[in-house]
């Protein structure tokens, strides 16, 4: 019972819109949809896999012609897509991979590679030695795990860098402020903070006050507007810029090709860039 005009409506299932990153992703997707004459139905799982499973099941029966999924969790999304796959709808994954389900294409930047780049950038900033702390994302979230993996890889090359504390700040700016403040008490000699996203990096900067960018360097991840601004101010040494708008835009473009029956790449890589004060102008607007 799909719409007569196949290709009309596409569901974009976003993991959360409480985060500027995904808001940008959605904006990119909406722009592309408008250009291509696609009706885009955005649903927000508020970071809950089960909510997303519910939304995906609903999209299988609500007249959508295809589903773009930004998985809350890669592993869980596989079976959650079952009803969509059963209904014969094409699926495009964006930002995060989907395990255990056939997708037409994955439009993503690489979190592990990005994590590695972030670690290297911080190492460069601190001159390859000294004590650092890591601010982790939501425990158990796939991006937390993947970036952590990347951090470990990246730091492996710098034996003189010591990770003295590794604590979660839930991807949240306010939490990061408190956690960093507290960590500083126990570890007054740190030279760097490696944060799994910009929100936490900005919270850390707030906690560091004048020391940020002077004797303690901070590296974030995402490339949000606030992040770029902090880079320009010299407070944030670097952020790993994903291009969420581009992720969103390309995911819709790929979906439109799939619906038109065209061939698409299995993996569509969107560049991840290390943004520092050197190149920030190219990114911020």
């Amino acid at each position, binding site marked *: 019972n799909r719409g007569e005009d196949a290709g009309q409506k596409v569901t974009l299932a976003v993991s959360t819109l409480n985060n500027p990153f995904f808001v940008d992703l959605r904006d990119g997707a909406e722009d592309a949809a408008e250009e291509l004459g696609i009706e885009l139905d955005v649903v927000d799982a508020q970071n809950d896999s089960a909510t997303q499973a519910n939304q995906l099941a609903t999209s299988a029966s609500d007249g959508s012609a295809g589903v773009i999924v930004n998985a809350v*969790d890669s592993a869980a999304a596989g079976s959650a897509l079952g009803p969509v796959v059963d209904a014969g709808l094409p699926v495009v994954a964006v930002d995060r991979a989907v395990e255990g389900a056939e997708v037409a294409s994955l439009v993503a930047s690489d979190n592990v590679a990005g994590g590695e780049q972030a670690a290297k950038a911080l190492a460069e900033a601190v001159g390859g030695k000294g004590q650092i702390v890591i601010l982790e994302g939501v425990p158990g979230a796939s991006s937390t795990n993947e970036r952590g993996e990347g951090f470990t890889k990246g730091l492996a090359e710098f034996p003189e860098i010591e990770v003295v504390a590794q604590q979660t700040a839930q991807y949240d700016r306010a939490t990061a402020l408190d956690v960093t403040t507290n960590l500083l008490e126990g570890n007054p000699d740190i030279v760097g903070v490696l944060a799994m996203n910009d929100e936490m990096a900005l919270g850390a900067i707030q906690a560091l006050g004048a020391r940020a960018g002077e004797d303690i360097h901070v590296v974030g991840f995402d490339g949000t507007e606030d992040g770029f601004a902090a880079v320009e101010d010299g407070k944030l040494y670097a952020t790993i810029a994903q291009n969420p708008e581009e992720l969103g835009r390309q995911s819709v473009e790929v979906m439109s090709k799939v619906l038109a029956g065209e061939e698409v790449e299995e993996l569509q890589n969107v560049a991840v860039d290390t943004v520092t004060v050197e190149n920030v102008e190219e990114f911020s607007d």
Partner: protein
Amino acid sequence: MNAAAKQRHFDLKSFLANNGALVGLVVLCIALWIATPHFLTGPNLMNIGIQVSTIAVMAFGLTFVIVAAGIDLSVGSVAALSAMVSAYWTTTAGLPDGVSILVGLAVGAVSGLVTGMMSAYGKLPTFIASLAMLTIVRGLTLVVSDGRPISTSESVSFLGSNLGPVPMPIIVMVVTGLIAAFVLNRTIIGKNAFAVGGNTEAARLSGIPVKRVLVTVFAISGLFAGLAGMLLAGRLDSAQPTLATGYELDAIAAVVIGGASLAGGVGRISGTLVGALVLAVIRNGLNLLSVSSFWQQVVIGVVIALAVGFDVIRRKNVRH
């Protein structure tokens, strides 16, 4: 004979009186049926059935605690720990799948038992005891899983799949709902919960073992939460460390929308089911209507208030 007839008559009345949100639910369904052709379709109703199952099963158990005038904030976390330990048991530790569901249920029941003991013997307010368990159990889930999802065992995955044309979650929900209703209304466990919640002092003076009742209702709540967690993980084929985070508020809301009072002494399993359905139908309907996700939250709040409000208006009309 007359009394018996009266009795049957009364039961119908009290069913309606205790399932007031039913009116809200029906109004909601009619509105959605008018608003979108996708709502009243077989597959969509099946979806709703599956989607409501986790919260419903969790809320069935929670009904016991609330009837006994307690509150259990740990149900979401307990669901996650049960699912995780059961997945660990088979997938990571390689132990026999045959009992993996039992392992999950045991984890749930024991977690509830501990909350109940903290509250009955440690004299902690149930809010605090269960809040403490919320974070303890979530922490343990992260420890067991090392923060990574673990694939569920085949039996647990089966819980999330279909049995012929009928989804297992719906079957499980119906069966556990009937059991819960039976235990709550027909057994001494349920009666004691009502007595303790209705007037703890009177219950104590009548020789009801108040502490044991508290421990029992929390164990039941944990047991159901554990099952709910496995249902959910089974649907995802994966136990996630963040599984069911924040579900406690939805589960409590389902029980309260269903007519129970947080002051204790009142509550019905059928009401709880209606409460859970109200929440699930709202979410499903808003997805179908493609309401923007920011406004969706606003609308959900308004509809919850209205659905419960309908009940209040109806009850006022009945009283006078």
